[in-house]
């Protein structure tokens, strides 16, 4: 939730700054004169000059990871000198820097730069036709057929689990359906050495993590758009919403599967408890992995106990997971050493091994998954990237969500997710589930019809 908040703040502030950023002078001809980036990246040692990489990973700057990477890079291009600048409040400060020409050579692409403004700030990295075949997540950085930014790694949606706890409970194969997942939790409960599922219910934002499983459960990159164009109900037997929240309902209904008092849970404490082997699983985005690994390291536990699995739901025999990229990287169009900067960018994203060490998915399609996501390879999970809404539907999903107060991503006290959870805690049974979800459908459809104007 903090992330979302920070993002909103950033967007807000940047909205005003971005106006100032816009430059009137035409895009320099680097555009046309740039040879295909691939060639220069492989090109080799004739590159020289000093480039500055501005990024947000202050933690990796301080522990020397970045300097080691620079040394690695210098083995290939000895004449390129790399300087680093790590910024804590990256999203806001980079915007201020971008009001001048002087914003380093390689930077993490701010999310606030609009797609149509990309050419005002950055040089193109290649043609869309070539790049989208080879790399994930490039579509959002396309302008006039060229790609202006490349992700340095990505995250997936799924469930965090403690490998040791699962192994001790005698579970060898990862679950492939919600029912199997619950069976696994029951095995952990029978073993009695850990809380099978920790809800973190006191912190309202945690329940929204379940929503990130929905598109994965549908196995359709276009699912959210399809809900609008095909006027599908959110909940019906076997829908993606039903799969995800049905599993939530079943887990929350069984006292032996979660902690005893859901309203006094402890988020910070749960990180340590997880590392100590007191928790079996939690539904969290893969952004949480590094925090849990850190908590494990802090108490001297091997961070490898942190496992991550996709939402166990098969669509036509395949398990899917939605992936999204972390910050992408771009090259400043005012850079004096554009070629060296590009070479570093491609090397950093493709070959540096940074993404793998951070537990991020590689931007190169077909590369093996990082260690923490090895279960994804094991289950042959198909990664999907959610399609943006077509132009006529932009913002409509959100508008319907708010107007209907169904708000799938929200955490207001009267949200349906809390109603479901509390009905489950109160052992109200499947009838209550059907009643609540029927209500959700009714409200959603009413708002959808009025927003889309087809009464």
């Amino acid at each position, binding site marked *: 939730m903090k992330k979302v908040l920070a993002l909103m703040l950033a967007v807000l502030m940047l909205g005003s700054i971005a106006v100032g950023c816009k430059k009137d002078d035409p895009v320099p001809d680097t555009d046309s004169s740039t040879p295909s980036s691939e060639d220069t990246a492989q090109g080799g040692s004739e590159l020289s000059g000093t480039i500055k990489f501005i990024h947000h990973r202050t933690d990796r700057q301080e522990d020397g990871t970045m300097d080691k990477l620079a040394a690695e890079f210098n083995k290939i291009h000895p004449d390129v000198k790399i300087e680093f600048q790590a910024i804590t409040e990256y999203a806001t400060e980079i915007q201020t820097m971008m009001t001048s020409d002087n914003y380093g050579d390689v930077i993490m692409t701010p999310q606030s730069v609009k797609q149509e403004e990309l050419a005002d700030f950055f040089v193109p990295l290649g043609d869309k036709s070539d790049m989208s075949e080879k790399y994930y997540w490039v579509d959002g950085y396309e302008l006039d057929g060229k790609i202006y930014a490349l992700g340095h790694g990505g995250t997936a949606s799924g469930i965090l689990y403690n490998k040791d706890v699962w192994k001790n409970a005698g579970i060898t194969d990862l679950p492939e359906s919600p029912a199997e997942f619950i069976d696994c939790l029951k095995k952990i409960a029978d073993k009695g050495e850990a809380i099978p599922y920790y809800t973190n219910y006191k912190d309202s934002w945690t329940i929204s993590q379940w929503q990130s499983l929905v598109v994965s459960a549908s196995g359709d990159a276009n699912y959210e758009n399809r809900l609008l164009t095909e006027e599908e109900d959110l909940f019906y037997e076997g829908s993606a919403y039903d799969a995800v929240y049905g599993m939530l309902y079943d887990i929350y209904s069984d006292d032996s599967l979660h902690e005893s008092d859901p*309203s006094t849970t402890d988020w910070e404490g749960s990180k340590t408890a997880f590392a100590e082997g007191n928790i079996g699983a939690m539904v969290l985005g893969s952004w949480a992995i590094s925090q849990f690994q850190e908590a494990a390291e802090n108490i001297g536990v091997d961070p490898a106990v942190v496992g991550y699995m996709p939402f166990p739901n098969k669509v036509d025999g395949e398990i899917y997971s939605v992936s999204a990229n972390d910050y992408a990287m771009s090259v400043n169009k005012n850079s004096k050493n554009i070629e060296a900067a590009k070479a570093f960018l491609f090397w950093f994203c493709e070959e540096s091994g940074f993404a793998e060490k951070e537990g991020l998915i590689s931007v190169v399609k077909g590369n093996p998954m990082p260690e923490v996501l090895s279960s994804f390879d094991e289950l042959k999970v198909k990664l999907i990237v959610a399609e943006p809404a077509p132009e006529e539907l932009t913002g409509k999903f959100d508008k319907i969500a708010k107007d209907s107060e169904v708000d799938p991503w929200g955490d207001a006290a009267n949200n349906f997710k809390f109603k479901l959870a509390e009905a489950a805690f109160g052992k109200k049974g499947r009838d209550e589930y059907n009643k609540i979800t029927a209500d959700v459908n009714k409200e959603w459809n009413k708002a959808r019809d009025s927003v889309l104007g087809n009464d």
Partner: protein
Amino acid sequence: MDKDTKSARTQAEVPRKGALSNYKVQKTITTITFMLIPLLLLIVLTYIPATNMLIYSFQDRTQFSVNDSFVGFDNYLTVFSQPEYFRPLLNSLYYLAGSFIQLSLALLLASIICSKVRFANIFKGFIFFPYMINGVAIALIFVRFFQLGDGFITTDGALNSIIKLFGGEGVKFLSDPLSANISLVFVSIWRYIGFDFVMFMGAIQSISPDLYEASDLDGANSWQRFQYIVFPSIRPIIGLQMILAIKGAISVFEIPYIMTGGKFGTSTFVIQTIETAFKYNKVGLASAMAIILLAIIIIVTVIQKLIFREEA
């Protein structure tokens, strides 16, 4: 300013009548200058926002609204026609019941402390202390207090430890609508009783000792003394406290918002209003809810005033 002093000087030259008007002018200037800043602050920080809110309540607008449209009484109709917007107001009944307990308890304690008790000042301090603690800290303390340990991550809070010590079963105080609301009301009483207590004590201490002496001579017992001397004397204060209690009960926010986030059926009308504005982005509707809350409080206050005026 310069102009004023000049005119004051010219007027001063006219004898007697001039002196009077000079004083009057000065008085006016002083009054205006003293009033200016408080009035300015009041207008800028209270009346303008309140007027805006009233205007918003007739609009269909979002947080960063650029093209707001007037929708007449639609927002009010929505609130009144959909019971789920009013349901949280029912939770105020818990707090209202709690505030009567709180007032009687505070009155009892004040009467006891005002009769000759040893270490009265220490008790005063103890009773008033919770009122000075920050609400967030109180909420955190009491989440811990009501906690039921799960044997792995959290341990039993004070209340469940005591229950288990006497062989009882652990209770999930905050994980069930009824017990959660009662627990929150308990916290609210604990927090605000000090304020009521101090108000009552001040009122009781201002009663003239002569009355007590006279009643002693007449052989009144302590209940009679309370009934005929203390209670009539502090009646205005009781009336005031009751208005505050009702107003407080209708607009409860801090403690449930932090302790349970309004989950487990503990949402209140104010929580609902805030979430309508900032989580559902319906600022117009939320403004209408705020205006309705304001109207309820004004009505309650007027009724209260009328009743107490007649009795006085």
